[in-house]
């Protein structure tokens, strides 16, 4: 597919009485037009209007996530996210949930390491109720004893069950090893004792300090007019405090380079995860790393790791690598699952491919194929309103600019063979890889 690059179309329009500032930007093949909405109360959202289906999808994100959980309250952001839709204003948990279900309003919050995100999906016909309920959830959550204890019980059960799930153990152990003294090393789901101790006061403090207008990012897609959204932005988010409590998360340098950690569990298949220092989103070589990773371990049924470990030898069902840029650290990571007897061979192949890409890089053909995939598949992300709304939030979050969708494919195109191979050499250091194996691997032991 020919790369689609559209020039930026900027058409600022001021709708006088509503003060809706509109900046237009078109996405791939003119598929979408982004309008930047500024509400009378000063709240910004990016909107893609789509009247083909009477639904509205909104995603939003508050900067600052589980990484900011206070000492002895690890899991607070996650627990708060689970409780925001469990009763607000004059509706208790059951009344709130029942109204959501009866009107088929999908409202959900989630805590990540760097942000608390939410989504609201509703039929256009129930728009006003949906936005009112979101407003209540954000500004008047009740945190009644019943839902607090119920959700606490569910979260503790998940934490306990995760202590026996190989994939969950592997991920947790990896992050703890990479970031032993940084908040990124703590599980976002929380620690059992901390979750058990979280109080209603903690939850109220969380919403008061962390959900504010100055750390809020909003993306909306669907059957709604710009003016209507502008009004709803104020009625929904206007009640939030102007500023979130100030925070500073330190830079995180991954530790544990070159370590292998085996966690013994009596399971037939070992879960393997691996990572090393990668790049943050703003790094000039990020796109080179992105293209490199696609060829190395990111690309569906065609990557080098897939080829070497699954296709040629049948050692795994799932094997991949990916970039994981956080606010304060960058990682390149991956995972595989293989029978206990094959862990040694799988790790040997993994390291061999890691070293081969670093040493020899890729060739022009691989680079060209990667580019046609990455640019050609970009329009595929525009096939559902939720996916578009998520991109609107992501682009704002990373400060990529409203014209990013027009530029994105040219950024991929601009990556040269020299760029990818230099980046591969810098990033992929097989001997620095941190590896965690959970299972009963044969012949593989923890390093000192």
């Amino acid at each position, binding site marked *: 597919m020919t790369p689609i690059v559209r020039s930026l179309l900027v058409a600022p329009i001021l709708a006088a009485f509503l003060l809706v500032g509109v900046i237009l930007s078109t996405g791939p093949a003119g*598929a979408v037009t982004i309008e930047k909405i500024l509400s009378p109360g000063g709240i910004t959202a990016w909107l893609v209007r789509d009247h083909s289906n009477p*639904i509205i999808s909104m995603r939003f994100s508050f900067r600052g996530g589980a990484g900011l959980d206070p000492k002895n309250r690890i899991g607070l952001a996650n627990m708060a996210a689970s409780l925001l839709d469990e009763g607000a204003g004059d509706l208790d948990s059951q009344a709130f949930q029942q109204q959501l279900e009866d009107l088929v309003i999908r409202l959900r919050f989630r805590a990540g390491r760097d942000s608390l995100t939410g989504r609201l999906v509703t039929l256009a016909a129930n728009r006003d109720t949906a936005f009112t309920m979101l407003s209540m959830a954000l500004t008047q959550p009740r945190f009644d004893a019943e839902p607090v204890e*119920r959700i606490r019980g569910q979260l503790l*059960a998940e934490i306990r069950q995760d202590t026996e799930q190989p994939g969950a153990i592997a991920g947790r152990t990896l992050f703890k090893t990479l970031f032993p003294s940084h908040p990124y090393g703590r599980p976002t789901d929380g620690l059992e004792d901390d979750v058990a101790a979280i109080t209603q006061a903690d939850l109220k403090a969380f919403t008061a300090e962390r959900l504010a207008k100055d750390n809020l990012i909003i993306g909306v897609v669907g059957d709604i007019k710009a003016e209507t959204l502008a009004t709803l932005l104020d009625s929904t988010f206007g009640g939030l405090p102007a500023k979130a409590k100030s925070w500073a998360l330190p830079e995180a340098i991954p530790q544990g380079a070159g370590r292998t950690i085996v966690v013994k569990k009596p*399971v*037939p298949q070992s879960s393997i995860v691996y990572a090393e220092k990668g790049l943050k989103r703003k790094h000039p070589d990020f796109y080179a790393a992105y293209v490199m990773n696609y060829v190395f371990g990111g690309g569906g*049924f065609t990557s080098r790791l897939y080829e070497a470990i699954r296709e040629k030898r049948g050692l795994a069902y799932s094997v991949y690598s990916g970039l994981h840029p956080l606010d304060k650290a960058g990682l390149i990571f991956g995972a595989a*699952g293989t029978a206990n007897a094959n862990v040694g061979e799988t790790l040997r192949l993994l390291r061999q491919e890691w070293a081969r890409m670093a040493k020899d890089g890729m060739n022009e053909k691989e680079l060209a194929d990667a580019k*046609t995939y990455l640019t050609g598949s*970009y329009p595929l992300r525009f096939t559902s309103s939720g996916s578009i709304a998520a991109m609107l939030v992501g682009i704002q979050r990373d400060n990529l600019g409203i014209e990013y969708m027009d530029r994105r494919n040219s950024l991929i195109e601009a990556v040269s063979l020299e760029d990818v191979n230099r980046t591969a050499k810098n990033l992929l250091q097989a001997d620095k890889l941190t590896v965690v194996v959970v299972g009963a691997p044969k012949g593989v032991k923890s390093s000192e």
Partner: protein
Amino acid sequence: MTKGFPSMKRGFLTILFAAVLTAAGIFFPAQAGVFNPDTFTLSNGMRVVVIENHRVPVVTHMVWYGVGSADEGQGESGIAHFLEHLMFKGTKIRAPGEFSKILARNGGQENAFTSSDYTAYFQTVAVDRLELFMEMEADRMTNLVLTEKGVETEKGVVLEERRSRTDNNPGAILGEQVTAALYLNYPYRRPVIGWAHEIKALSLKSVMAFYKKWYTPANAILVVAGDITAAKLKPLAEKYYGAIPAQPPAPRLRPTEPPQSAKRTVTLKDARVRQPSWGRVYLAPSLLSGETQHAYALEVLANILGGGSSSRLFRTLVVEAKLALSAGAYYGADDRGPSRFGIYASPKPGVSMETLEAKVEEELAKLIDGGVTASELARAKKRMQSTAIFARDSLSGGARTLGAALAIGLKVDDVEAWPERIGAVTVEQISAAAKAVLKEGRSVTSYLLTKKTG
């Protein structure tokens, strides 16, 4: 079962549960004229469905085969899914893996999946590349070439898939055993991925025989959703799929289920279990098997009884009695054979299985004696019907729903008229369905328990 996304890490029970939810109405139909597809049939019997969606110049191209694990022969469990994997191994004109490489180079994404009743392959790609993929998909419908080495290597992959989905997960192991206990004779008793010892014994010869028997135009359905019209698609469909010689379709002969009269219980104690759970499945009719007149009523019943946080089971067990951490019910009407009506609950720490089970039984008795209220019914209908509008939002929603329905043996109208049929369900029909289906002698109760080590 799928050929797999690298990031897929869900357990089999989750997959199973998602599939059931899908069937119960999350993706499945709703609203008059849900997807408004165009349909036509090629001269060799292959059916074609077109769903227009012009948001972006992209299409999802799917080919569905009316064959799944329930159509496998004795001792060949897993062969339908194994063939699905092997379909990526090359043809007379394409080397192993070439299909995927060409697709990727063209900016496309792909996968495939197998269920008890069907197998499907799909690519999502820019519409100007559609013809290329129609040619390639048509090619592998008849020209598959396998080697002994390719078959043996892929067996390793499938066994790893089985380990990650099932063997590594006590809940999934129990689920597999419960299904085998529920169906005494119907082939749904076999896991879609297959029993490990039978996967190991599958041969190139048996796979090719299965392929030749089932992968024929009259047993295939082409579904294309996206920036396309039937008028534009038809000549391409004729050219690539229409050129495949017709073959009489293989009959889907499956053993049937005998009358069931004994309640069964299945217990798994495993040290890996940190959160016990309780479950019950009842053998139930589907839209195509057994007392089919109850199917729509059962869909609504599952929604009222256990479809969310304000459902009966969740409210009574979790919120009011505070005995459980979670509770719900599920049912899928879109099975070719007998379906199941399921109920589950996870006890809070310190609550015994007996106490939990007694409370569930109490709720079931209340339901069978008193039925549901008109208000509960009205609310459930509205919830279920609204899901149709959401289903239209993505390219894959319509393609998957219609493809699955036709591959099972339902008609386009069964999908398009689903909202009306749900709307027509009465309180009396729900009572009749509950009485007919929730019978102890046709149930399996399961206990997932912690085994104390040492």
